[in-house]
């Protein structure tokens, strides 16, 4: 309905292959970015920033990572949280052991270490597929947190493996207020999103999808399956690693290995299922959904409790959450296997063709 595509013709491939090809889309996205960078910091309360927006962004990053591996390269992973942990602890060690290293380098370092570990646990994928691989990634999920506790060097000799991150400074600015944290993370997320988009529209992205859709055919036309899979693990783990670092440094401030447990992995998996497997946009949707749902639920339950003047224990609330999450996952897989992102793109198509159905 709002699309006016006449005259938007492409006279070069670089324009035709641009990230956003329709000027209305460009406008929308830029407006959105501008809004979240320039307006949100002023209107959002600290509660919103710290309890909703910041975790949303962090999880978006993690979901993006998992989506690259599972959504694009088709390799199911249940060890996301473990790779986040690696990122967090690696970044922490860079910060405390490398004298006045810029935070960004610590994050990147964290990402790279995570990538390395990711490749290590990705190695089985060279021999095994599907469920076997999924189980293999569980090994990471159980092994890594244990290692982080056992080897106290990682947590700078904290017996329970807890790390408390040093204050973050960026070119002299101390990033400690919710707003500054929010903006800092937002920028990171935007940049990494663009990089992800670029990878996906390049050779490697096509190779990932090729391996996902039909690996034999892919190999036959000259795509090295092993390499492609490992790169997927590396890139995915890098994103998860950075997410973990941000999670530790800018969201929680102090984390323990057991915080990166299998439940966290599952939550991130749910994000991409609900948001949309194989869609960058979907990572955002999923993260938003899973971050907001519990809050929503609590409010509803609280409301009910008040309304019916009964007391509902927090235990029940969390149990209800489990139940509803589970139901939602099944519901989405049945009704819209491609998640919210698909709904979004359908809506977009409808607007483009309006008033016609096709």
């Amino acid at each position, binding site marked *: 309905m709002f699309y006016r595509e006449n005259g938007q013709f492409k006279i070069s491939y670089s324009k035709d292959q641009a990230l956003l090809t329709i000027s209305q889309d460009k406008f929308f996205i830029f407006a959105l970015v501008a809004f979240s960078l320039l307006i949100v910091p002023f209107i959002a309360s600290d509660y919103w920033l710290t309890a909703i927006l910041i975790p949303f962004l962090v999880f978006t990053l993690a979901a993006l990572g998992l989506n690259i591996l599972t959504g694009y390269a*088709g390799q*199911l992973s249940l060890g996301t949280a473990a790779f986040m942990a690696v990122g967090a602890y690696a970044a922490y060690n860079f910060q405390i052991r490398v004298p006045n290293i810029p935070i960004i380098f610590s994050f990147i370092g964290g990402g790279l270490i995570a990538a390395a570990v990711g490749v290590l646990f990705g*190695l*089985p994928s060279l*021999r*095994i597929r*599907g*469920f*076997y691989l*999924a*189980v*293999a990634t*569980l*090994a990471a999920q*159980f*092994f890594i947190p*244990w290692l982080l*506790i*056992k080897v106290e060097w990682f947590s700078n000799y904290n017996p329970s493996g807890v790390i408390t991150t040093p204050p973050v400074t960026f070119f002299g600015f101390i990033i400690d207020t919710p707003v500054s944290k929010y903006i800092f993370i937002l920028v990171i997320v935007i940049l990494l999103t663009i990089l992800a988009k670029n990878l996906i529209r390049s050779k490697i992205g096509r190779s990932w999808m090729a391996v996902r859709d039909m690996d*034999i*055919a892919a190999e036959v036309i000259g795509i090295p399956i092993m390499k492609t899979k490992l790169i997927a693990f590396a890139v995915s783990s890098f994103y998860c690693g950075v997410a973990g670092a941000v999670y530790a440094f800018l969201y929680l401030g102090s984390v323990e290995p057991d915080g990166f447990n*299998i439940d966290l992995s*599952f939550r991130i*998996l749910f994000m991409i*299922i609900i948001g949309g497997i194989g869609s960058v946009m979907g990572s955002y949707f999923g993260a938003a959904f899973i971050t907001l749902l519990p809050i929503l639920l609590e409010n509803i339950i609280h409301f009910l409790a008040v309304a019916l003047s009964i007391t509902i224990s927090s*235990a*029940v609330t969390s*149990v*209800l*959450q*489990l*139940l*509803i*999450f*589970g*139901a*939602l*996952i*099944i519901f989405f*897989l*049945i009704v819209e*296997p491609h998640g919210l992102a698909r709904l979004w793109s359908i809506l977009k198509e409808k607007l483009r063709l309006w008033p016609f159905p096709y």
Partner: protein
Amino acid sequence: MTFFLEVLIGGLLSGVMYSLVALGFVLIYKASGVFNFAQGAMVFFAALSFVGIQINFGLSFWPTLMVVIILMIIVGVLTEKFVLRPLVNQPQITLFMATIGLTFFLEGLAQLVWGTDVHPLDIGIEDAPIEFILDRFDMVISAFDLFAAIISGTLVVSLAIFFQVTKIGRALRAVADDHQAALSIGIPLKQIWAIVWSVAGFVALVAGLMWGSRNGVQFALTFVALKALPVLIIGGFDSVLGAILGGLIIGALEKLAEVYIGPMLGGGIEGWFAYVAALLFLLIRPEGMFGEKKIDRI
């Protein structure tokens, strides 16, 4: 030496219980090609329901058992109807994720109905060393472990026989080989699935009782299933025998490692050791112990 044997036997015995859980996975995988991640949740669900009913309705052992069996059958049927059937012809990975959803659902449901507290479960055998073995060989073999092993063993064997001789069993194996073919020769796929899920539910119940009465019925039970996954890797997703032997191997290795390697690494290795062992195993035999090598037809 006796100590080593003691550990080994202990391991093997608890291994049988791994086999029991793994068996649940294998049954469903063979029949419907689904990696039922919810098996653990079913164990938990069954055990919690069991104690829940006992406590809340004061029923004695056998009636409760009956009720819960029926309950598990219902769960199986409903799962087939509302989860598997709508997702038929979807990629396996989708079904797998659906079972993860199911996991959360069952865990949530069970705790919503029966509460979240830990309950002891007593099936009348106390976890004490068997005297005469202690006297004869001076080895500590838990009577409970032995009992559990026997129960599990008999169950496993009877199931194996059940699937070898009965009509359903044969149908099941046909289904496992080729869904389309099975359909074409008039095997009612849906019923088969429902049955298999029910049986898996029953297996889960037994496993639940065993583990529950050992560690108490609590949320941690769900992790028992996770423990069983390495068993599957070694045994292969589609081999009953594999599940059994795999369970024994994992059980034994785990106990041995716990005793001999654990101290070196500062303990707590049982959480991951099975997995790493399985991984290493995989690198040598990707198709598992009994899984046959697949040739990609193109």
